[in-house]
């Protein structure tokens, strides 16, 4: 499917989905956090989409807007198309339902985002830190992360 057609088709799935135009190179949609697992499941199961693999999960800390953007990159082996699904959550209460039950690999990708951003995944079976020790304080990839250990590059 062409990029625009795919974007339009995905948006017709549900009222919780709306198009996102900031993404320059592939179809992108915004989904409301509560509807995320159901919609990703439908994207996986419905034959005209067939998004079988969750390629990647990224979080971006938009500190000026007070939001985290969680981006899920989906790929369909059948139709060979990509889709990026964004979810916006508030920075002070970052909670989103987990996708583990739809795409098992989400378990670890979400653990990485929890580790580095502190986003909490509801119903995640094993939410632990992934890269840092269990007693690490703070979430280092947040823009306001402070650490005495870090050095600034002399300009």
């Amino acid at each position, binding site marked *: 499917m062409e990029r625009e057609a795919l974007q339009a088709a995905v948006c017709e799935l549900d009222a919780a989905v709306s198009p996102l135009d900031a993404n*320059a190179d592939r179809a992108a949609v915004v989904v409301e956090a509560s509807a995320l697992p159901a919609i990703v499941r439908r994207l996986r199961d419905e034959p005209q989409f067939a998004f079988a693999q969750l390629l990647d999960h990224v979080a971006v800390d938009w500190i000026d807007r007070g939001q985290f953007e969680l981006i899920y990159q989906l790929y369909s*082996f059948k139709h060979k198309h990509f889709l990026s699904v964004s979810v916006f959550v508030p920075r002070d209460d970052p909670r989103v339902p987990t996708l583990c039950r739809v795409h098992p690999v989400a378990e670890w990708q979400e653990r990485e985002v929890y580790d580095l951003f502190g986003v909490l995944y509801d119903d995640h079976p094993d939410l632990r830190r992934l890269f840092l020790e269990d007693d690490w304080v703070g979430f280092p990839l947040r823009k306001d992360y402070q650490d005495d250990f870090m050095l600034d590059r002399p300009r």
Partner: protein
Amino acid sequence: MTVEVSSLKELVEQASGDDRSPDTQEYFVNMGPQHPSTHGVLRLVLKLDGERVLRCIPVLGYIHRSIEKISEHMNYMNCVHLTDRMDYLSSIMNNWAVSKAVEEAAGIEVNSRIQYIRTIFAELERIQSHQLWWGVLGMDLGAFTPFLYGIRDREVLNDVMEETVGARLTMNYVLPGGLMADIHPNFVHRVKEFIKYFRPKLDEYDDLLTNNVIIQERLRNVGILSPQTAVQYGATGPVLRGSGVAFDLRKDHPYGVYDQADFEVPVGTIGDSWDRYWVRVEEMRQSLNIVEQLLDNIPPGDFLVKKLNSKIKIPEGRYYSQLETARGVLGVFIASDKKDEPYRLHYRSPNFNNLWCLEPMIKGDYIASLIGAMSSLDLVIPDIDR
């Protein structure tokens, strides 16, 4: 809706308390982070019953160097240099992935000479990476000789590439907007010599390892990964192709000049360690074919379309770009806020996603099979941790 944050300690303690059968006891074994066959500092917490693996919990972070955080304070030209420290065995492909993402986002067009050279180098490096993997696989299974053979041929190819690139491992050759240097005048000639040298060596590899009974016994029907599991667990590259899914970005979404080369994508049948082994050995042959076809057609032109040290600014937005490294799909995510530094740079590393196939692969199997299965995944730990 519940959120519960746990720790590794709790996980181990809570598991060791319950169900003790009278004859055998379940116990935990730590494998790594300093272990010769984990290729670096991967730590696996294994729950064993006798010699059977019941659970395999990878513990990461022993080489987490915070590359993504550092990249937020660098301009796009500098970011490239950190990428070949991630998956150092496919460093040119890593450079290319970032360069490709930046070029697509900033609208920089590169000429076809650059694309040809990048493609040829990427394929040479794929061969190089698989040579090392081949030797190390032998070593992991207890045979030291393949290691010597693999390194021997790797050095030959290394010399050819070093003449142009000037480095042996972390090559830094591809930049946004071109290449670091033009190819050496000897390059084409020497690559041809290498191809002539290496073709018969691949048959030697077959004699030595592929047709070896011990290797077959240790790899066949070990670590079976079904195509469904492979897709669900995020596997890409030779791991996914070994399970029979013919997905290769070089074929399905061609970049560089892969659409001008004629090659095949080897796929396995049942997805055991043997299939993954075979896919990689076959990929070396296909890469030789690709290089051979492209080598004589390198068009004339500049090797750099963008001035070095020039600041590249990317319009606001999110960009995602991916290419196929020796281990799978490397994705580069850039969120830009119009500055010359990325607002957020994220790498989808192929190893990170391939690693999780380990547990479904070896659950219920012997601990000795774990080594062979892990070797067939060809993990590079610094790429997992970044």
